[in-house]
């Protein structure tokens, strides 16, 4: 059932990188919640695996002295949701991670795998987009930092080269401080389903909490890769919160171009984008201590 030619258990990140460099066909496996499914479906039949599962240096969430958050890519969805640092600094990311799959998947699947897999429906992706996360990768030629805006290259394709390993997801302090957020996953069912649309919204309220000073909005599944909505962000910034909530949905329609698939029609997705953008912003305002009229 699982056609695996070989499995190499790496002891540390360096070990994994050198093993990957030796074998250009090798596939990295972490939690296995995507890779094992592909193997079973035959897509990766006969593959050689390099396992990074259990490498301690790649796990856990820390807040650095300068306030930047460093998320180890092997942190599981559950680890993200339960992390003290995440709950304090970016609770919306923990809530987004808690919507992926079911409990078993969240105990195995990792946030690094979620973004390296390069799919648009990844539940952590749109929130990481709004947070302008930076991906630190290490390969045989050293280390480089890739902003999330340059990370996604197409369906299932990311800026990671072979033998490069995602070693850290960085959320700089200025990207999250003062912001509150909310993620809405729209799917046919409320669990064990892939999002028909994912909407993540961050807002920085003015001192009196009456205005939305800065707004960041990102979608999953409205295109081949997760994407931000710059028109909606610019149009909603500076408005009184109720006006921003009312307007952001229609503004977002200028940023998106969803397609019809078996999961949902283009028309339906446009309606979801229009409606859920406002709802996500509304909840983000409430999470930030702001008051909304409707």
């Amino acid at each position, binding site marked *: 059932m699982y056609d695996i030619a070989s499995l190499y258990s790496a002891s540390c990140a360096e070990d994994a990188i050198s093993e990957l460099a030796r074998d250009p066909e090798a596939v990295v496996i972490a939690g296995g919640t995507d890779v094992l499914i592909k193997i079973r479906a035959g897509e990766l039949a006969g593959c050689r695996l390099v396992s990074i599962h259990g490498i301690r240096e790649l796990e856990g969430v820390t807040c650095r002295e300068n306030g930047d958050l460093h998320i180890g890519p092997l942190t599981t969805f559950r680890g993200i949701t339960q992390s003290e640092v995440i709950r304090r600094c970016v609770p919306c990311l923990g809530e987004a991670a808690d919507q992926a799959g079911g409990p078993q998947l969240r105990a195995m699947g990792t946030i690094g795998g979620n973004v390296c897999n390069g799919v648009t429906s990844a539940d952590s992706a749109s929130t990481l987009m709004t947070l302008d996360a930076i991906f630190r990768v290490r390969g045989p030629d050293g280390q480089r930092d890739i902003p999330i805006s340059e990370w996604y290259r197409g369906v299932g394709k990311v800026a990671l080269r072979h033998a490069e390993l995602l070693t850290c997801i960085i959320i700089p302090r200025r990207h999250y401080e003062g912001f509150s957020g909310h993620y809405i996953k729209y799917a046919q069912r409320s669990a064990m389903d892939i999002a028909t649309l994912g909407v993540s919204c961050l807002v920085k309220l003015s001192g009196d909490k009456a205005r939305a000073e800065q707004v960041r909005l990102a979608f999953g599944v409205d295109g081949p890769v997760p994407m931000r909505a710059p028109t909606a962000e610019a149009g909603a910034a500076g408005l009184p919160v109720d006006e921003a909530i009312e307007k952001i949905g229609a503004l977002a329609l200028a940023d998106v171009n969803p397609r019809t698939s078996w999961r*949902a*029609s283009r*028309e*339906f997705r446009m*309606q979801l984008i229009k409606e859920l953008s406002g709802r996500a912003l509304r909840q983000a305002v409430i999470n930030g201590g702001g008051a909304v009229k409707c």
Partner: protein
Amino acid sequence: METDDPSGPFGNKSLGEPPAIPVAPAVRNAVLHATGVAVNSLPMNPQKLVEEFRKGGLL
């Protein structure tokens, strides 16, 4: 069960269909009552309703 229904063949009475049949029309009529949009085919899932509401000028 024991009563004789003169309107059915051999006096029998259907028990499966009658309770199942009116549910969908009731939901459809509730949607009509609430929105003024008459949906005449199933399923009445979110996507279908969005499409029908657009046709009806609600969205």
